[in-house]
């Protein structure tokens, strides 16, 4: 009995010591393998695969392994990989998930020389003022933006006319109108919704819901949590009235509005999404795209809004793993540069994938202006700010999501839901 125990303990000890040793560093002159982890996007995949082929011709010693995951899986995977000290050479995530890597020193400052800039200031000057400030930390820039995206409202004109509305005139400018219009569009069989006017993009509360709160005078702050109870309760009440406990216009368990939108099946009139949706409509349903039966309208505000705020914009930034050997890091920046900064690539990302790199050259150029409804997005950009990416962003988002589901699905009183939310948010922030 004792023997077995001792043996087992010995085993465990040896194993522990084996695993405690780090991996050896590869030498700089050897062929370089880049691990590139990114989220699924079929149009971008086509484009970047071409870039990678071209890049390999320029650098024959480089192999690039690409790993594509759905956005949510990617975030979890990268965290797990970093936790075990592994991780890709470079990757991208939304800024609200990515900022923590900068704070923890897990990603490397930009290699300005490789990228062709003098210094951080020079790099920042390439972009629209303030738009990539999120990755400017302690005097260095830590990532290059693949996209900066904001969401406006996509609208199906046919469904509007089918409900007896004139899309050009009757499109909702306020949230109250959004509710009224949706009431006219919605079709139900008993309680069962078969056609929706609009539905929210649930589980992205930091992007679509915080601006609604802000319009009413509230905010989310890293110091005080959910500021201004009155505004929050009002916004939550709006959500409650939207859901099955109120007017029954939509809810988070139904198929995501933006997925239905492209199919043009007369089951959704409006959805909340970014410019990239245009490329997706084209690839999913070219007939609908070409019919011109869709349009984009600005992000609504509340009638009694105290502040004009549109949906937040978020960014995906390419960042380089600071734990990798210097040569690998440099090559990663080299490839990022090839992706993003090569002449004409920004325009291709825009026209073929619908991604906006916030460079001055692109956003003030002719290609951007020629993109359908880019003006709407540009105007919404002007009245929006970047998404909350501070402490506990992911957890706070789930807490808000949970509060919204409580009021919508379980009929919790918005004031009670707010109190619980505020307690949770403060607790997350205090940790």
């Amino acid at each position, binding site marked *: 009995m004792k023997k077995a125990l001792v043996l087992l303990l010995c085993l465990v000890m040896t194993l522990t010591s084996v695993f405690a040793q780090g991996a050896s560093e590869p030498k700089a002159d050897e062929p370089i393998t880049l691990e590139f982890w990114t989220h699924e996007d079929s149009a971008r995949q086509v484009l970047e695969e071409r870039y990678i082929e071209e890049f390999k011709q320029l650098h024959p010693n480089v192999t690039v392994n690409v790993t594509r995951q759905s956005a949510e899986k990617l975030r979890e995977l990268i965290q797990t990989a970093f936790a075990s000290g592994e991780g890709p050479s470079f990757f991208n995530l939304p800024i609200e998930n990515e900022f923590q890597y900068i704070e923890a020193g897990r990603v490397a400052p930009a290699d300005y020389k490789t990228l062709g800039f003098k210094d951080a200031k020079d790099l920042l000057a390439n972009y629209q003022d303030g738009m990539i400030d999120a990755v400017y930390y302690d005097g260095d820039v830590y990532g290059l933006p693949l996209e900066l995206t904001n969401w406006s409202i996509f609208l199906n004109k046919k469904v509007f006319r089918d409900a007896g509305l004139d899309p050009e005139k009757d499109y909702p400018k306020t949230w109250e109108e959004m509710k009224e219009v949706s009431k006219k569009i919605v079709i139900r*069989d008993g309680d069962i919704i078969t056609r929706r006017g609009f539905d929210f993009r649930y589980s992205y509360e930091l992007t679509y819901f915080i601006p609604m709160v802000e319009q009413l005078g509230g905010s989310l702050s890293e110091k005080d949590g959910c500021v201004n109870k009155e505004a929050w309760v009002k916004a939550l009440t709006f959500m409650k009235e939207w859901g099955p406990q109120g007017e029954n216009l939509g809810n988070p368990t139904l198929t995501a509005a933006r997925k239905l939108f492209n199919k043009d099946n007369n089951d959704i009139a409006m959805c909340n999404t970014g410019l990239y949706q245009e490329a997706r409509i084209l690839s999913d349903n070219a007939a609908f795209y070409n019919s011109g039966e869709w349009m984009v309208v600005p992000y609504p505000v509340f009638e009694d809004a105290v502040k004009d705020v549109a949906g937040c914009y978020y960014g995906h930034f390419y960042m380089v793993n600071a734990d990798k050997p210097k040569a690998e890091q440099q090559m990663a920046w080299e490839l990022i540069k090839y992706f993003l900064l090569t002449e004409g690539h920004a325009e291709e990302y825009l026209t073929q994938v619908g991604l906006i790199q916030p460079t001055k050259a692109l956003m003030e150029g002719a290609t951007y202006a020629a993109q359908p409804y880019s003006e709407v997005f540009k105007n919404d950009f002007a009245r929006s700010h970047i998404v909350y990416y501070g402490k506990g962003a992911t957890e706070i988002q789930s807490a808000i999501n949970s509060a919204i589901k409580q009021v919508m699905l379980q009929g919790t009183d918005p004031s009670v839901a707010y109190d619980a939310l505020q307690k949770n948010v403060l607790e997350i922030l205090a940790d």
Partner: protein
Amino acid sequence: MKHEKKFSIEKQQAKWGFAFTIPCLLFFAVFSFYPIISAFITSLTNRDAIKRTWDFIGLDNYVYLFTQSNGGFSLINSLKATGIFTIGTFIPMVVVSLILAVMIMQLRKPGQSKMFELAFYTPAVLSSVVAATIWMILFQPTGLFNQLSNFVMRSSGRDFQWLTNDNMLRISTIIVYFWKYIGYFTILFITGLASIPPTIYEAAIVDGSSRWHTFWKITLPLLKPTIMLVSIMAMLQCLKTFSTQYMFVQGGTAREPIDVITMNIYYTGVVNRRLGRSSAMSIILFVIMLFFTFLQFKTQKGDEDVEY
């Protein structure tokens, strides 16, 4: 090596017996014991997935879990969710599968019993991902299950809120699980029933006892070990449930009502980066499962010798 001469056959054999278990022991040492010890050590730290350094904080994680809300998804709520799911699933499952097994055993045509066995078992061969995918569509307000509910309740256009209402959501996860595993447990009981020597029944029939009486007085007591084994297996499986709830939440349902411990571990550790806290939850789950198994061993002690 002086003792070698003294080695009797038994000692030789003991060596062989131990040698045979070594591959498995080695395997479990690396892939179970090492990780769980490592998880226990992590549970005493404030380790974060991304931060490079962490400190030992003693039992703070455990204290936190029992006193704080973990960002709105508290351990207490998870214990409740797991408890509701486990009790709501394994008791009906054991009872119903036992009844079904008895019913199938009574069918006189072997072809029929075979058909029912096959049909009941089929859902169990689907992967959980497929099962959850199918049921997420069925539970939609426009989906088949809601239509059937309207048909059964003789109502029309009613939304039974299979995925939106708190309690209905809990029931939905139970239904999926029940659907997937009912056949599996029925087969386990059939196995148990088949192992009861037919002579016992024959004797009972000669005695003139009714079927009901036979079942109650003879079958059930003889089946007790099987029932215990199946119950504990079903219960442990329910305590470990993950994929159904996970797929549901991914599909947009509320998390709280079905936030079972395993899912909370996943969200706290993998999504929210708090490895220390999530490890503490893992250890708590481990202890709970150990406790129930221990309880089962205790109560089963007396029955262990029953073999037939």
